[in-house]
């Protein structure tokens, strides 16, 4: 056990003394994370990962119950964080502001809108008057939300109108009141609509509940930093694997084998060394990003266990590549290729959500995808208890790859006395 430990510590020291290796183990992921922070606006505060303060211009030419009620919706306390309303009076000037990309949308409530729905004289057929949403095509999300708010308001208005009309008409049709009485009832209904235009209850009750805990604002760097760290972790594990073949070529492995050290202890020590180096690399990067970028990784216990599981899974891949390759150069080339392919498949460059489903499914062979999933969960406020799937997957991946690698090592007689 002690020998295995000593071999592992020796490999850890060698890795951290190799300046060339340190460039890719630590410098590259750190500098790339810094670069990603800069280009995403994380460091300049211009990054906005959620919806808030959507600029909208309200032009209320109706100046009647419904027009005022709709304007009130946009200026309500309930939507204060979501919308940033401005009141306009000139439709053409407001449209011009949209064309100049100054707001997400203009809501123009034309004159006579209320009259078109609740006519003063019910006998007169009301002319259809439409609200105009002048949308900014370069802000589709904001414009879509403005339209949805208008839709929700109109659905309430429409429900009240239909409900009132059906009540009266059905009374007449069933002969419960005469057409003459219907006029009186209609006037009463109109009055009720005018005083209570948009406050009809839903036929289906919405039981709304809010989860416990604090609001979590997702930090884009909490996705990007682990993505880069995990990509370069794959370099580290192949670098460690390469050292097994390098020791054989350089003659230090045969020397070890003539000492009273079993092949299992040697292989175990080498694997332990890769595991230690990978863990140290990840923990240094996590520490550095926390210190320099004020990045919150989430539940510390979850982070540590996830790091260990991710390094275990990645070490399995490192051993597999070493078992398949013949020379240290081959391990280096294949390791670098796997680092980059796993990087893009695992979501280090582009979020996996934006990849085709087949690629998303294929990405499950990478430790990157599972670990990044876990780190995202932690960054969103999850804890160790939410990490059962990624941790199980990473440990299983590592175990399977270790078994296959040991079998291949046995066939190659790589570490045999």
């Amino acid at each position, binding site marked *: 056990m002690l020998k295995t430990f000593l071999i592992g510590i020796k490999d850890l020291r060698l890795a951290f003394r190799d300046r060339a290796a340190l460039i890719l183990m630590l410098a590259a992921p750190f500098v790339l994370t810094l670069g990603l922070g800069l280009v995403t606006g994380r460091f300049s505060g211009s990054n906005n990962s959620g919806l808030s303060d959507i600029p909208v211009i309200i032009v209320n030419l109706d100046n009647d119950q419904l027009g005022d009620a709709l304007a009130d919706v946009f200026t309500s306390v309930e939507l204060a964080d979501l919308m940033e309303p401005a009141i306009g009076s000139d439709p053409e000037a407001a449209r011009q502001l949209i064309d100049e*990309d100054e707001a997400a949308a203009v809501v123009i409530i034309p004159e006579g809108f209320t009259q078109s729905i609740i006519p003063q004289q019910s006998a007169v057929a009301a002319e259809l008057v439409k*609200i105009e949403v002048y949308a900014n095509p370069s802000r589709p999300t904001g414009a879509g939300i403005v339209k949805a708010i208008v839709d929700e308001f109109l659905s309430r208005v*429409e429900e009240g109108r239909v409900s009132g009309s059906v009540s009266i008409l059905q009374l007449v049709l069933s002969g419960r009141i005469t057409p003459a009485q219907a006029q009186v009832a209609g006037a009463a209904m109109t009055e009720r609509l005018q005083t209570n235009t948009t406050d009809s209850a839903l036929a289906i009750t919405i039981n709304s509940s809010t989860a416990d805990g604090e609001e979590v604002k997702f930090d884009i760097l909490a996705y990007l930093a682990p993505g880069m760290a995990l990509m370069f972790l794959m370099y580290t594990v192949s670098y460690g694997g390469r050292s097994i073949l390098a020791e054989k070529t350089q003659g230090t492995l045969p020397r070890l084998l003539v000492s009273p050290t079993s092949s299992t202890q040697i292989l175990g020590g080498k694997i332990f060394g890769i595991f230690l180096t990978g863990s140290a690399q990840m923990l240094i990067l996590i520490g550095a990003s926390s210190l320099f970028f004020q990045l919150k990784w989430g539940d510390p216990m979850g982070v540590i266990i996830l790091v260990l599981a991710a390094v275990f899974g990645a070490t399995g891949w490192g051993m597999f590549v070493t078992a398949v390759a013949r020379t240290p150069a081959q391990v280096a080339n294949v390791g670098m290729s796997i680092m980059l392919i796993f990087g893009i498949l695992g979501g280090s460059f582009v979020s996996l959500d934006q990849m085709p489903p087949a690629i998303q499914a294929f990405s499950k062979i990478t430790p990157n995808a599972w670990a990044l999933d876990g780190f995202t969960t932690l960054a*969103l406020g999850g804890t160790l208890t939410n990490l059962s799937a990624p941790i199980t997957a990473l440990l299983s991946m590592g175990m399977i790859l270790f078994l296959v690698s040991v079998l291949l090592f046995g066939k190659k007689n790589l570490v045999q006395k």
Partner: protein
Amino acid sequence: MKKIFAIAWKDAIVRFASSSELIFFIILPLIFTFLLAGGTPSNDDDNRVRLVVVDQANTVISQNIIAELDKSTAVRPEVLTLEEAESQFDSRRANVVLIIPANLDLQAIQDGTAQVDFRQQPNNLNATVAERAVQTAIRSVSSAVNAANNAVKTAEENGTFESEADRQAYFDDALKLAQTMQDDAPERVTVIEGSTPDRIEYDPRASSSAGQLITWVFIPLFGISALFAYERQQGTLRRVLTTPTSKATYLLGTISGQVVMALVQMSLLILFGTVVMKLGWGREPLALFVILTAAALAAGAIGTTMGTFIKTEGQASGLSIMAGMVMALMGGCWYPIELFPAVVQTIVKILPTTWAMQGLLDLVLRGGGLMEILPEAGVLLGFATIFFSIGVMRFRYE
């Protein structure tokens, strides 16, 4: 001339001595170009707020609610099982979950017992948006039933029903009438799309093809530094010194060889872009040749200068990869530069990758020609001149 060719040929043989070099020369660039072209967000993406829906009822009413939600301009419903939804909600992957319980049907609405569960994360604005969209969808689906219920209530205020059957018949008639009125209801909102100019000219295929071309060509050209370090470590540079070969001849042979290989690599990637991704790379061949050559010379010059500072091959390889990736990222080769903060957009103009990317996008995305890419090509040649001068001045055989 013969010596220059011999040196370039020797470098090509050394570089491709292992077939694994082909992985970096063509296979990985193609994989990255393909994946990023297919996976990069485009303007057609659905930006609506994601709303997880659990449909335990699976009735006409529940399906209509989901259909109405799908029509919303604010939310995008995604139907999951209760277990998946709860797992996503607990791990905060889902901001809002709508659960439609098993007993939600027309009868439940008529009885006034219909309910849905709406779960939201604390202080989440997406949840506010989603809740309004859910209200709209529910209103749209249930308003006819609501109207019929109100009609029954109004009728009861005007006298009682003779029997339960009479009451039900009254409800059914009112429901039919409400449904007819609802179907005949006019559209009361019109959406007009403004003529705001699109701030971002973006095509994932064009950006991926151009960006990955630059990334994968700049990294090996920066790797000229590793070539120098390798030869220096091996002592082969000293051997060259004993032959009648000038420093200029050696440098020209090495650099021109790498630049030619880069042009071959770029041609293959351009061919892939043209044939597989249907991009218009071949529209202005002269302009394309000029910008590619200028970019390759600039990268080769930087690699030469790096080679005069870095001592070991291992360090040179690592630094080439790191510098290549960072410059590609900052130069807009991975993500559109228009999305960067304004200050960063200005700062990254000091990078050759920024100019190379802009030049290539002028050709393949903006339909430009030789005149349009001349400023970018000029800047890249400026980079080449400065860094070649530094490299040649600092170059030592030992």
